[in-house]
């Protein structure tokens, strides 16, 4: 999931074309009906209703403030995760790469 976005579970009846799926939709056997990141269309909503999918998870774009807080939180968590291994050079390198990776994430 990209940074600074929130995921919201909604009933399929409330789904609108243009909403972006946050999770893949699977049928009962585990086969994938739709991939995450895909925008819903009138047609796909109808198809999901016919398949009896009750609710879906969609992405909610966040405000700048929320995004900023989210990023701060993610970077703090990285420091905690690496707290006990910072003395190791490979760990420090991995941490730096992860920091840059997280910082580049765009909603």
């Amino acid at each position, binding site marked *: *999931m990209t940074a600074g976005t929130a995921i919201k579970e909604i009933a399929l009846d409330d789904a609108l074309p243009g909403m972006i799926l946050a*999770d*893949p939709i*699977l049928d009962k*056997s*585990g*086969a*994938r009906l739709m*991939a*995450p990141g895909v925008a819903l269309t009138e047609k796909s909503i109808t198809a999901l209703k016919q398949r009896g999918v009750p609710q879906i998870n969609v992405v909610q774009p966040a405000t700048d403030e929320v995004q900023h807080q989210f990023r701060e939180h993610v970077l703090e*968590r*990285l420091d*905690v*995760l*690496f*707290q*006990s*291994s910072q*003395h*190791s*050079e*490979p*760990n420090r*390198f*991995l*941490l730096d*790469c*992860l920091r*840059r*990776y997280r910082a580049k994430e765009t909603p």
Partner: protein
Amino acid sequence: MIALTDDDITDAILHLPTLPSIVIELIHTLDIDDVDTNTLAHKISQDQALTAKVLGLANSSFYGMQSHVGSIPHAVSVLGFNSVRALVTATVLVQTLSSDPSSGLDYTEFWKHAIATALSARTIAKYIGLNPDHAFIVGLLHNVGRLVLATYSPVRYQEVLRWRSSNNTDLSTAEVQILGIDQKTVGRAVLKHWKFPPSIVDTLNTSNENFINEHQRAASLAAVADAIAYGLDVSAAEHDRVPVISSADWELLKLQEPALIAIFNTIETQFKEACMILGASPNK
């Protein structure tokens, strides 16, 4: 500290659930070139629940297949027998070794981390020219000794968890401190018991042993994959800490930043879906 003895480990392993025969057969084929894949594909197909999960994975973002994979023999022909074997083995292991509430270990967290390590190992393998399906199994089983430790002695395992949080260390360090044994040593015994070939078993070497074997690159790959999975925080457990990566392991792989970023990306793209299909994410 009273260290666990070899007898304790043997006893713990005997208490593990029996693996279904199809997986025992598949494990047996791991180091064999001449395998009757048709017969095995047929046998896998007879288990409908297993088939559904394996096809779910075959059709997931994992492989990015353009066309729908509709059956096990079809999966064998388009993905190769190695991939199907890895998927079946993973599916069955997650299913067989699930949930023992008395152990104090959170199984969902355990398997989430194992799946992320497997995905991580598979992705790194492609960068350094090792077999990705083999790496997937190695990654998945990297911490399997932990399950044995936690189920064998739940009370003492609680002590491990407490020591970890109060001393702010990674789990392996706490296990060595409290139980006197590295979970990889236990893992090796488990994998030998299940008759995994040396190419898998020998990847569980411990850092203080420092022995170089022919499977060293796969072993280093698994150690780094494990650290990356913790770094990406996929299991998101409060007390998770990234274990120390040894310079020897790191230098062997020579991973540069662009490769690492691509690896992070691939793992995060595939992770949720893999967990859902394998049943390691009960509404969490």
